[in-house]
């Protein structure tokens, strides 16, 4: 009991205290979360008519963001493999960081699905026993199951590891390693099932393609690690947690390979559609060149193609890969490029033209843009606050009552990569 109270005291203290930039960041996030909640209030009281969605284009930004973030959630955990192979530093600590990113992305996914529903208060209909889940027929049922399972696994591993470190105990490997190993194929599974949501639908030829699963995985392996490279740099700047330069460059190398594969897959898809030149090519033509004067997505997709390609080149050449300016530029370009490719460039053209041949364009409206920004900010807020607790535990700054504060936990100090010098940062204050 005393331990719990002490822990809660530490948590409160750490969440409330920080340098000025921490307060500025959290306030910034809270303002946009507030705006998002207000916009959702508007949507909730007057219906989804306040969005740009129509009977013709019945999914929009919400589902696009959802799809992108499932990829981020998957890739965050898949980083464990190279982290292990290339010895990025303490594998356990890297695992925890990846898992917290995955949990944040999953929370955003769930929020995005929820705000897309016409009747969120009926969500219990999806549950077994009290509801009537359409299992195993509906891929949405599978997706809910596998995403929640993934959330559970990640929460379980990170809570277990952080608790043992916090209490200064030695973690029992056979207790958590099977879960870590399970989380890797499961990460592939969440994005595979999310691709199945689309590619199992014969009504939408643009989605109904077997290459969707590998394409989704390849693009997830671009955006997730690119986001991680940025996050790792911020973490090591603001906390005592250290990630080696070499590790970041290795991740960039991996992103480069994944982007190469992603571009190859996209090319394969584009060739097949264009050369076949059947009715099914219409959404692709609409996306890349516009159809009968409707060109809403053309500028988006070419931006994505350009961003992805420039990012690929930046990560291909060692000089630009090892220069932090070009490395970060590449990361930003790739995150935005993949975000467009999976949202505006994938979900929307699936609906245009409609199965009856109507071309009706989609333009996101203010409330849905505000809701999207609000959800992203909520995800960032969760990530920030979770790291604010997790990192001091990892670096040994935060310990349970009676446990020496710097006690390492099994790792050799040099291998754990934790710097001994005190740095002013979010976690160390």
């Amino acid at each position, binding site marked *: 009991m005393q331990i719990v109270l002490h822990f809660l005291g530490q948590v409160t203290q750490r969440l409330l205290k920080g340098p000025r930039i921490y307060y500025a960041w959290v306030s910034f996030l809270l303002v946009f979360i507030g705006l998002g909640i207000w916009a959702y209030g508007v949507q909730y009281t007057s219906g*989804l008519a306040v969005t740009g969605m129509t009977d013709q284009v019945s999914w929009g930004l919400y589902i696009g963001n959802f799809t992108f973030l499932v990829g981020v959630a998957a890739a965050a955990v898949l980083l464990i493999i190279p982290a292990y192979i290339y010895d990025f530093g303490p594998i356990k600590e890297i695992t925890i960081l990846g898992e917290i990113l995955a949990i944040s992305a999953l929370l955003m996914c769930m929020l995005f699905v929820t705000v897309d529903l016409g*009747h969120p208060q009926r969500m219990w209909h999806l549950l077994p026993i009290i509801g009537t889940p359409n299992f195993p027929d509906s891929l949405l*049922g599978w997706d809910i199951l596998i995403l929640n399972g993934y959330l559970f696994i990640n929460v379980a591993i990170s809570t277990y590891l952080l608790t043992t470190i916090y209490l200064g105990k030695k973690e029992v490997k056979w207790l958590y390693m099977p879960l870590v190993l399970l989380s890797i194929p499961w990460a592939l599974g969440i994005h595979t099932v999310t691709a199945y949501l689309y590619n199992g639908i014969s009504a939408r030829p643009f989605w109904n393609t077997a290459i969707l699963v590998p394409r989704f995985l390849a693009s997830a392996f671009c955006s997730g690690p690119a986001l991680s490279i940025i996050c790792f740099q911020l973490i090591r700047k603001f906390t005592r947690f250290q990630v080696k330069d070499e590790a970041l460059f290795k991740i960039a190398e991996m992103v480069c390979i994944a982007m190469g594969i992603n571009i190859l897959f996209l090319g394969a898809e584009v060739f097949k559609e264009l050369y076949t030149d059947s*009715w099914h090519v219409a959404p692709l033509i609409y996306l890349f060149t516009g159809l009968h004067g409707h060109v809403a997505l053309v500028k988006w997709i070419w931006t994505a193609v350009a961003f992805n390609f420039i990012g690929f080149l930046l990560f291909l050449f060692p000089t630009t890969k090892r220069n932090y300016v070009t490395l970060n530029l590449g990361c930003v370009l790739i995150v935005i490029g993949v975000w467009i490719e999976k949202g505006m460039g994938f979900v929307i053209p699936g609906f245009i033209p409609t*199965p009856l*041949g109507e071309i009706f364009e989609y333009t996101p*409206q203010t409330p849905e843009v505000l809701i999207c920004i609000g959800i992203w900010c909520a995800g960032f807020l969760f990530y920030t606050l979770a790291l604010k607790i997790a990192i001091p535990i990892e670096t040994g700054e935060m310990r349970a009552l009676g446990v020496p504060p710097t006690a390492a936990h099994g790792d050799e100090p040099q291998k754990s990569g934790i710097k001994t010098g005190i740095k002013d940062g979010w976690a160390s204050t």
Partner: protein
Amino acid sequence: MGTDIKGAMNRRTFLKAAGVASTSLALGGCQIPSGDDLKALVQSHFAEMSPDEIKAVRQRLLRQYKKKYGRDFVLGTEQPIPDVLFAYGLDLSRCIGCRRCVYACVEENNQSRRPQIQWIRVLLLKKGTMNLEESDHYYDAGLMPREGYYTIPVQCQQCENPPCVKVCPTRATWQDDDGIVVVDYDWCIGCRYCMAACPYWARRFNYAEPEIPIDEMNPNLHYLGNRPRMRGVVEKCTFCVQRTRKGRYPACVEVCPVGARKFGNILDPESEISKVIENQRVFRLKEELNTQPRFYYFFSI
């Protein structure tokens, strides 16, 4: 151009809604739900209800309709008739594209007038092609029939192998024994996966609260058919379940001025629809998708 108009409309509705939302927040949050609203929230899936539950739900709905619209309704929950499997025939050589079926359907099935919801879409096509992508959805019905063109009305095809039912995550839409694919509007969570999955673009979503002039409402309702819908649920053609389960024709069949629409029980070899399938060379839309529509098109001449 179309998007600009829509953008302006949406901005207007948004601002209006923003005003309403702020006012209601200022007045102390959301309005308190009535007991009937709470009952609706916890009610079961229609197919799992006992006869007593169905009775209670009917009474609740009638109470709510009375309160909302100030008039009485007849709300049926008729089950499929045994040994009946409905199918539809549409004679494209007779169809003149007048859209009377569209409007009769709107009135019969209490579809929202604002925003406008229509379950039937009539496509204008040049003679010589069946490529739906070349169809015109917004032709002027006053100029029909038009030389060199023909029309194809499309509505729910009541597939034997319906993709919409397969994808629904809550079983809120299903196929009854008479072949009609229905929706329990009180069970639909509004995820719109069925709309993405339908190859015939037959499903509509209530993006806003449906508006119907009270004096234009059809008071003869069915729970799974034309009862007034709420915002945030999906709806579709039900072969006029409120009529056909009582032995009547769907409204579109009745209104068609040229007799292009045929309807009946395919299990009865003497029915009109059985005769159509036997004597005409019928075809179905997008057969390559194996959805097996129970909606047969044909050219009698």
